[in-house]
């Protein structure tokens, strides 16, 4: 089927040059996947800046809860009057920080950027299956960003019931100020976001299935594409459930239905809701919420698979096992949601079932980690910044993943549920790991996106400070969690028992500030390199995948002439000839996918 699609696309390519795109067509309402990828990236990074800034305010508050800081008043206005942070805005910060980082930065910013950039380029397609849908997807995302940020300017404050927005707290403005207009805006923003995500995901799926170039069988796809493809499928399966939950919540809020509410007495008044169940909402939410973790993580793992193989100058170890584990993770991710609800009041028998499925997911995850390590083994590691971030990802993914074994065990979850142990766990395994994946991707494909190189030395500084800081924040955090320190607390001073944890909280905050400050190197490097970076060569990392066969200067349709044909998988790094005297192509340790099988080469059985 991929063959049939090509002649059309070729014809399309010949139109190039007939029509000079206007500024608006080129930079704003562009339907070109490369431009849309850049739009996603820059929007995602801006959202990331906002999200991280929020976490800094929270860390400042947690480290010195009884001190005043003028910065609160500057940034939070009347919620920070006289330099004292209002407890309600602390909850709002944690809610919006979570929402922004998970949905806007790590879903759209990461998957949106690299799926758009790499799917057509790596499978050998002129563009996405539907450029228009793709453009629509981005602009819905941009609109959603505006809505969620605007909720900070609402009188009663933005949504403040945690990023999970559990009702009844999120349904009743009487329960917390943020559940008024702020919560409505949150629901509107997420609804638009889901529409954007679905348009994008369907497009990715169709493109991968239909527009692969000649010879690009599914088992020759780079692992990046496998990851994006499966991520898109998980998104299509699970996001609609969140939409349903959001709509039901909206109805409970606005039209008096009782899906999630029952028997409530608040502010001296019995409400009329009867028969609903907040636990139902938890089920619906986590049916998306847990796969969401893998929506965030799989693209990062796909990106690092590619970068680690390229920079190790070795094929990724166990290509088929990697695909199998992506598929296994995708399947299992939809049957483990209940591990967020061990103590929610659901039937304890279900807890047993979810413990079982949850711990199963450790197996494919373990296979991936071991395969990465074996890929490093006996390599010739080119320690570019992207490679450092990829190795960093393997490290944090293992550290964070291992504590999942404790949290996924229903018995052990009882006492660490909703404590800082959880915060430490998921920030390492999905927050930091996915961010490393994002950074790795940016450093690696920056030359493809902007035609220039990022400064490697600034990249090194950025990585090392971030690596030290990230562990400095989150490793000690497990221990305050084990002390029983609950999350989403505005301050801990109401419990004298926690007084001796204050120093550790300060230590964590200090690491957090250093880590955040290190991102300035990245921001400077990123912006400076777009305009003044060294001009990139066509294939700077000596990589095998098809995107490096396109010219540095972006053209509509990606390849000036015919679309390249594919003859091999993308991991023929350091492959030796039959006689074992040299590489297949003498003196060159890589064989791009569009190079036919050579005479002196043993063909791998595919």
């Amino acid at each position: 089927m991929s063959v049939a699609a090509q002649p059309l696309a070729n014809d399309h390519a010949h139109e190039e040059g007939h029509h000079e795109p206007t500024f608006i067509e080129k930079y704003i309402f562009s339907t070109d996947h490369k431009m849309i990828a850049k739009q996603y990236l820059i929007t995602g990074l801006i959202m990331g800046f906002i999200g991280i800034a929020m976490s800094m305010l929270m860390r400042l508050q947690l480290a010195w809860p009884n001190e005043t800081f003028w910065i609160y008043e500057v940034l939070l206005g009347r919620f920070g009057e006289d330099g004292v942070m209002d407890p309600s805005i602390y909850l709002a910060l944690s809610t919006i920080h979570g929402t922004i980082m998970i949905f806007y930065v790590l879903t759209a910013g990461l998957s949106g950027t690299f799926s758009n950039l790499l799917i057509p380029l790596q499978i050998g397609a002129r563009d996405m299956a539907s450029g228009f849908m793709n453009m629509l997807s981005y602009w819905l995302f941009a609109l959603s960003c505006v809505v969620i940020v605007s909720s900070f300017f609402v009188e009663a404050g933005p949504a403040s019931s945690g990023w999970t927005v559990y009702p009844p707290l999120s349904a009743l403005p009487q329960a917390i100020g943020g559940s008024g207009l702020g919560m409505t805006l949150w629901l509107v923003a997420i609804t638009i976001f889901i529409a954007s995500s679905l348009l994008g995901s369907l497009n990715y799926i169709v493109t991968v299935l239909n527009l692969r170039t000649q010879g690009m069988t599914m088992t020759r796809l780079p692992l990046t594409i496998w990851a994006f493809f499966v991520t898109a499928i998980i998104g299509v399966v699970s996001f609609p459930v969140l939409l349903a939950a959001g709509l039901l919540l909206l109805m409970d809020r606005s039209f008096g239905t009782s899906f999630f509410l029952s028997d409530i007495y608040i502010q001296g008044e019995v409400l009329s809701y009867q028969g609903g169940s907040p636990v139902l909402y938890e089920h619906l939410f986590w049916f998306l919420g847990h796969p969401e973790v893998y929506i965030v993580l799989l693209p990062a793992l796909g990106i690092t698979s590619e970068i680690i193989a390229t920079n190790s100058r070795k094929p990724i170890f166990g290509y088929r096992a990697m695909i199998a584990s992506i598929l296994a993770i995708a399947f299992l991710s939809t049957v483990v949601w209940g591990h967020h609800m061990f103590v929610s009041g659901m039937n304890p028998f279900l807890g047993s079932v979810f413990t079982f499925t949850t711990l199963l997911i450790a197996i494919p995850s373990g296979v991936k980690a071991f395969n990465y390590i074996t890929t490093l083994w006996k390599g010739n590691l080119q320690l570019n910044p992207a490679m450092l971030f990829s190795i960093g990802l393997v490290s944090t993914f293992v550290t964070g993943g291992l504590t999942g074994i404790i949290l996924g065990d229903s018995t052990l979850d009882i006492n660490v549920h909703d404590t800082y142990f959880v915060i430490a766990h998921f920030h390492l395994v999905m927050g930091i790991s996915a961010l490393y994946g994002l950074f790795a991707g940016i450093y690696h494909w920056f030359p493809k996106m902007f035609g220039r190189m990022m400064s490697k030395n600034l990249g090194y500084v950025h990585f090392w400070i971030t690596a030290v800081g990230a562990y400095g924040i989150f490793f000690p955090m497990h221990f305050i969690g084990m002390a029983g320190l609950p999350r989403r607390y505005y301050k801990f001073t109401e419990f004298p028992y926690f007084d001796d944890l204050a120093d550790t909280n300060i230590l964590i905050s200090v690491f957090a500030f250093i880590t955040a400050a290190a991102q300035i190197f990245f921001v400077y490097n990123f912006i400076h390199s777009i305009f003044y970076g060294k001009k990139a060569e066509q294939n700077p990392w000596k990589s095998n995948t098809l995107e490096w066969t396109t010219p540095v200067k972006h053209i509509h349709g990606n390849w000036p002439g015919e679309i390249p044909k594919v003859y091999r998988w993308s991991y023929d790094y350091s492959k030796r000839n039959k006689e074992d005297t040299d590489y297949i192509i003498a003196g060159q340790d890589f064989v791009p996918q569009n190079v036919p099988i050579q005479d002196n080469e043993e063909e791998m059985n595919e």
Partner: protein
Amino acid sequence: MTALLIILVAALLGITIWQISKIFKLSQPIESDDSQIATNEDNQKQGKIFLAFTVFLYGLMIYSFWSLSKFYAPGASSHAEDYDQLFFISLGLIMFVQVIIQFLIHWFAYKYRGKKGQKALFYADNDKLEFIWTIIPVITLAALIIYGLFSWSEIMNVQETDDTLVVEIYAYQFDWRARYSGEDGTLGEANVRFIEGINQLGLNESDPYSQDDIITTELHLPVDRQVLFKFRSQDVLHSAYFPFFRSQMNVVPGMTTQFGFTPTTTSKEIRNSEYMVEKVKNINEIRQNNDNLGPDEKDYEFEYYLLCNKICGVSHYNMQMKIVVETEEEYQKWISEQQTFGELTAQN
């Protein structure tokens, strides 16, 4: 301590800036190759930094275990011992894996750093290896799952006996109440629709069982007697978290949830335990030096507490209830001094 940390940060930042400026200086004149692709020298340097980073990472892990694991709260319920054992086995296992895997990752990053003329090994697959690292986690996890499930069903399936004390924990923004069933041993019917005036928990006044119910602001529990908690919420989700008893259950409006445990250590005993004496001493030293505290707040004495662990509103951070675990006699004495619901309503 805070001042010391600030100085430490300033020093670290200073070192950072110094190092960065050094990198800038080093990178500019010497490097003729400004391709921004890692050179042989970069590989050497970054490989060595990986080694240094390994030292940092292991140092951090050792520091955390050495000086922070003391935060792990002592257990005081009959299943706490079982819980802690499973916890430490799991923790030991994951730390064992962690120590090995992190070493491999960083050691390989150092050992196989790119060198001129070095050739990578074309090594794409090995079914035997794949099988080994699939099957080992399968077996280990199977053991952990089975162990965990036994503990889980033991903790969650409370076998109620005649001796079991049934207590309702009632949550609302932002406080807790406890309701004891009184002499008849049965909690009276309740619903938020009955809330009126003094009847803050919404007991059905016409239900005879509710008359002898006792509503309190502190939770008193007799030691070594099984307690079954029935949780009820008036407004939003809360979570009743009893850290010392390794117990937690969400409190859900519209339904009753439950959790049971047997306290094994009285408040007095734990206060006099070596661990707690040491800890409280340390806390009181911190409190003496805290200028934000009034003179009467400086002396802290340990009490068990129940806290809210599910975001429930602006004062979520201060929703707690004191728990007293005492001998059966002390408990009987205390409960007999409390007012019953019938007496409460009769007064008004």
